[in-house]
């Protein structure tokens, strides 16, 4: 709808330009910088992605109040890829080729990111990706402002092992690329720490799985071997609510078998009565309950913008906030919105995050983040029980997988390579 109107105006403007070329060299359309928003507003992923669309509109609004970028106002172009992965690629192409956006903020699932990646590389545009993901990727045209596995999964496992004395691990996930790769990395990491295979149980379930009776009872069985057991959950989206309901109903308390989740945030807990879940954990780089001035200010403005003081904030929102501010800063440093110039100027750019520190864009197009572990509270919020002492740099190629431990990524010139092999001393290709 929005894009249609925008395109309509664009066509009108083009027609006007043709007619009055000599008379009016400047016209309305050229006074704005267009920013693409590529988040699903319908279909299965709408539950998570709609909020990020709102966040982007909010950030653009705030930036325009400050006078825009390079003296021009920003203009949002919203498209709806409808949770359909091939449609993501089509919409991305439309945003870049027809709407001529300067940068795109979007995608949630890894499947959608993989689908648009070739489009962004072919057309040399910019994508800011705000969600935690499995790593094993680094593209010149993509900026990963969510967490890599070493910024979320590995610190969470360390916390459980050190603080809770966990010795037995259930790795439960939804059956797709993010959980499978994360679990592969975690298994290799646990094995390296001396955990035997018999103390690790890996379990996959389909998307939207709703009958958790057998699996929860299996977890109980696995947990009754006399060793402290924990569940590391990469269960995605919709399947979480029935999973937690079954846990609560079968009486598994966090004191007995804690569950640490990587995809459950404030937004997902909104549909749940969290009183029986107090103490279950989540690992993120931001929680709404973070005690900092930047966060209090952000929440206040967000509530004012949405006119709803019940709207929660979450980690991918913070990642969007960081990514957007980095782009603004890089564009201002480069003095242009041209992709090549922004790619060169954005590395090293540092902007404040919401937890009272700052985030820096690294040469591998990942950013620095603190890692926070929170425990679910009765009011649907998290209490932060652990925070890494410093910032953690996103590691795109995991050090625990045999294929990727020798690879590094550095998009600064002259190396400019996403998968440089430090053993052979060669760049393995553009990506993957």
């Amino acid at each position, binding site marked *: 709808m929005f894009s249609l109107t925008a395109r309509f105006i664009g066509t009108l403007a083009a027609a006007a330009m043709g007619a009055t070329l000599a008379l009016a060299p400047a016209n309305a359309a050229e006074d704005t910088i267009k920013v693409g928003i590529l988040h699903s507003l319908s279909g299965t992923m709408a*539950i998570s992605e709609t*909020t990020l669309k709102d966040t982007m509109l909010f950030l653009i609004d705030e930036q325009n109040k400050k006078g825009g970028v390079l003296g021009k106002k920003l203009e949002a172009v919203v498209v709806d890829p409808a949770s359909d992965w091939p449609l993501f690629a089509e919409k991305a192409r439309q945003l870049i080729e027809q709407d001529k956006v300067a940068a795109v903020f979007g995608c949630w699932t890894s499947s959608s990111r993989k689908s648009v990646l070739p489009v962004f590389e072919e057309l040399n545009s910019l994508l800011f990706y705000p969600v935690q993901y499995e790593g094993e990727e680094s593209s010149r045209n993509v900026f990963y402002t969510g967490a890599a596995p070493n910024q979320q999964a590995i610190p969470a496992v360390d916390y459980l092992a050190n*603080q809770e004395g966990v010795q037995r691990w259930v790795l439960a996930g939804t059956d797709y690329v993010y959980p499978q790769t994360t679990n592969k990395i975690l298994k290799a990491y646990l094995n390296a720490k001396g955990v035997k295979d018999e103390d690790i149980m890996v379990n*996959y379930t389909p998307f*939207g799985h709703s009958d958790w009776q057998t699996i929860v009872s299996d977890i109980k069985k696995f*947990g*009754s071997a*006399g060793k402290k057991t924990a569940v590391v959950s990469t269960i995605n989206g919709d399947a979480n609510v029935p999973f937690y309901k079954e846990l609560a109903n079968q009486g598994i308390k966090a004191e007995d078998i804690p569950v640490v989740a990587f995809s459950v945030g404030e937004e*997902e807990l909104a549909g749940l009565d969290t009183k029986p879940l107090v103490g279950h954990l989540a690992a993120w780089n931001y929680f709404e309950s973070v005690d900092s001035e930047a966060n209090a200010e952000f929440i206040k403005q967000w509530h004012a913008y949405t006119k709803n003081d019940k709207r929660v904030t979450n980690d991918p929102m913070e990642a969007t906030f960081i990514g957007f501010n980095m782009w603004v800063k890089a564009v201002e440093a480069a003095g242009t919105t041209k992709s090549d110039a922004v790619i060169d100027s954005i590395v090293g750019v540092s902007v404040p995050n919401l937890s009272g520190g700052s985030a820096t864009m690294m040469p591998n197009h990942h950013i620095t983040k603190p890692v926070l572990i929170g*425990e679910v509270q009765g009011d649907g919020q998290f209490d932060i029980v652990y925070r890494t002492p410093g910032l953690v740099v996103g590691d795109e190629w995991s050090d625990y997988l045999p294929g990727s431990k020798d690879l590094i990524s550095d998009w600064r010139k002259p190396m400019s390579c996403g998968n440089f092999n430090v053993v052979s001393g060669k760049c393995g290709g553009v990506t993957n």
Partner: protein
Amino acid sequence: MSLSRFLSIIAMLGLCLFPAIAGAQVLDDAKLKPLVEALAGDNFDNTSKAVSELAKSGAPRAAAILNALSAGDLYVSKTDKSVFIGAREGSDYAATDPLTGAKLAPVPRSAAEKIKVNNRLRRDIGAAIGGLTLMSTNATERRTAAEAILKNRDPETIPLLDQAITAEKDAGIKVLMQRAKAAAVLNSTAVDDVKIAAIAEIKSGNGREALGLLTPLANVQGPVGEAASAAISSINSELELWNGIQNIVYGLSLGSVLLLAAIGLAITFGVMGVINMAHGEMVMIGAYTTFVVQQLIRTSMPGLAEYSLLIALPAAFLVSGAIGVIIERGIIRFLYGRPLETLLATWGISLVLQQATRSWFGASNVQVSSPSWMSGSFDVGMLTLTWSRLWIIVFALSVFAVLQLVLKKTMLGLRMRAVTQNRRMASSMGIRTPWVDALTFGLGSGIAGIAGVALSQIDNVSPNLGQGYIIDSFMVVVFGGVGNLWGTLVGAMSLGIANKFLEPFAGAVLGKILVLVLIILFIQKRPRGLFALKGRAIEA
């Protein structure tokens, strides 16, 4: 403020009158204060130490303070580092002095910080409170205390447990205390004979829990290890048997969910022959009706909250049924006999309904609460049954029975069957077939709506709720035999049980694929499903 000053005056008076007693009390408070302030330690280890110190002090208010800490109600003031029990009250905390229980002046929320607890700390606090409340006069407190000690297995609690066991009158709690003592004994340096007796005690209890306690002992050399291994293998063989029973029960539970989702479709698709892709959305609308009903009850009649589901049932039936009638009158009646167009049109309707719900209620899940009689679980032998699942089995079967009655014993049912078996003959008998069509479709949709009420208890209430059930529903109806309600019942139950027997071996993903493959093979062999309709009806 004035109250606390009044209290202190009273205390001072008391001090003069009964120097000995009051002196002890004041001294006690003075000793307790640093202990309580230590709870606000800067890391969990320090807080944990403070918890055990506080528990050891034996102060009468220690249990109350620890309970507040565990519940996250203990706060520390940012200015003078004093600790108080707080409750949210607008932008302030209503504060209570943890030492005396006296009311303090409210503290602004920005000036105080919650003392955080994590799981490990919560466990320690539970055990500490357990030690303090083991002799409590309140039976539930004693039970929780025994359970906490059973988890903690601290050998130091053995003398306390002995004392509690002799004093205990309630047989159930006594057994629990004995088990807690046995667990603590196994964790102690007691002699072998005592430990072997403890193993026997543990073995008689809950199988899973016993396994957890005994497994670490199996590798111990000598008679204790042997006794533990013997106990483990006997528990394991018993668990095997229970596993089979568990699969059947879980299968029936999954089957009843499938039955609920499919039974409305058995009418619209099975009886009327309409390929209704919007069936799942009728279920979703039922679930959202539950949400709206609960919201209304919460704001206007909070007393009825426990019965909100019962009120939601007729509401969901009417809402979904009405929408079903509108869809039938508005669209489907123009498409009878054109299955492909019906499929596309209803698919479109399903997308429209989903997006409408999304714009209306927002894309996120909404929260439907469970009444207390539907939460929690109970143990039968070594099997854990949850109340919600059990009620859903009962509910699914009663919906099935009522529907059978409607179809077989009422005038509407008779007409429905007449119209679906021979439309022209029924019409010439004076039955207004268009109205019967609309009512049949409404009935099927209404039943889907009440299925939504039940599913709201175990699944997400989101605009996508229906999508997850539509394929399963068609599978059940086709497998059971189109046009036969008994087929739907048997089909749902057998698919549920087959799924649950496959899941432990093949995993949830492969299990589901295997079930699909089996159904395809079955349909090849018997294209009309389990209970095929015979006679001329099928040609119509």
